[in-house]
């Protein structure tokens, strides 16, 4: 209950942090989806790039988030704050997004692609009318993992000056204030779930009902 009290007392500050958190994650997600979707599609067509690109994503993913934030912070053009945070988080999103776009496209039944080809779809039409629509379920699985992950890691950006929900946890630790920590953890989870639901709605719009059934099989 004291957590609730804390949230009410610090309502304005918490609101500011939540809004900041939300906008940071949304910015990162929009940039990442555009960028990594393109890269995923690209490596599904130019197979020889796939190994190197996926390997790079894996390496980036292995670097602790705090290190990546810290390193970017010390680069003068990026500095403390949002630019470093966005860049680091976009790089984190690379592995799950690129991998799922690539896998999604590769997992489309080749017989269906060939049927499309046999009816005279050009390779661009094959991509947009068959491969991508059929890969949506796998791509969205990646997007939803990513959005939850990015929301969590964004808390760490508090150490490079982002005023977001991570600050509640960070200050909670330094002041040994459990209400602050719990409030931060709770709200971050709620934000993650909300964003996940948002992506779920988008998924519902994009994934054909003809495929949703297959997925459940």
């Amino acid at each position, binding site marked *: 209950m004291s957590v609730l009290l804390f949230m009410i007392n610090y309502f304005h500050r918490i609101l500011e942090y939540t809004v900041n958190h939300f906008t940071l994650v949304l910015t990162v997600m929009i940039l990442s989806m555009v960028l990594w979707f393109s890269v995923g599609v690209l490596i599904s067509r130019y197979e020889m790039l796939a190994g190197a690109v996926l390997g790079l994503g894996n390496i980036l993913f292995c670097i602790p988030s*705090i290190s990546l934030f810290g390193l970017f912070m010390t680069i003068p053009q990026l500095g403390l704050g949002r630019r470093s945070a966005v860049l680091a988080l976009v790089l984190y999103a690379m592995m799950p997004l690129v991998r799922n776009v690539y896998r999604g496209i590769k997992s489309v039944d080749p017989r269906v692609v060939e049927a499309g080809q046999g009816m005279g779809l050009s390779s661009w039409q094959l991509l947009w009318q068959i491969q991508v629509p059929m890969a949506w379920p796998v791509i969205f699985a990646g997007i939803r993992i990513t959005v939850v992950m990015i929301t969590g890691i964004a808390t760490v950006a508090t150490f490079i000056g982002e005023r977001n929900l991570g600050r509640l946890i960070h200050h909670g630790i330094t002041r040994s204030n459990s209400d602050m920590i719990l409030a931060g953890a709770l709200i971050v989870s709620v934000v993650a779930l909300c964003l996940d639901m948002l992506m779920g709605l988008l998924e519902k719009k994009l994934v054909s009902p003809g495929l949703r059934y297959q997925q459940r099989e």
Partner: protein
Amino acid sequence: MDSQLFLDTLLQRSPPHILEHARLVLVPLGLAVLVAFPIGVILTRPQYRRYAGRVMAVLNAGQTVPPLAVIAVFLPFLGLGFRPAVIALTIYALLPIARNTIAGISSVSEDVKEAARGMGMTPWEVFTQVELLLGLPVIMVGIKTSAVLTVGTAVLAALVGGRGMGAVIFAGINFFRPELILAGTLIIGLMAILLERLLTLAEWFILPRHLR
């Protein structure tokens, strides 16, 4: 960039923290395997299979709690030190192991198990020689994922007095010194790769020759 500072960090400042960090990774990872593996095995037994969905939902929801929060949440109850960090990291490592244990064991087809039973294997033999062995690659992927994840997340343990390589990295952040961060990250990266290799090696030794 001060290369002298970088080398100093790499060779003198970090080494004492490496062992601490290794302890911060191996203890939680071991505990997580001890907890998550049996959970995964139980949830693939026919009589408990129907609970698998619900347990996984809880574990998945747990994953939405950010690592920073998990590390911090136990602080008020357990105070500063090694223990809250270990508990937090253990919890964080559970999900991939449990999930992949379930996936690995379920991936063994009913036909194969039926054939094994048909050859006269006891239920225990079917479990150890067929389900576990054939599911092992997938299970090991889960353990490796958790291992790599824990090596990185353990950096945050420094915030709650758990020490480890986080001490070096946070010093770099507080003093704005990329040399410290870079050196620390390099060591952490090498630890992650080494651990992953070791686990792959272990898998190779566990698997019988014809499955390697």
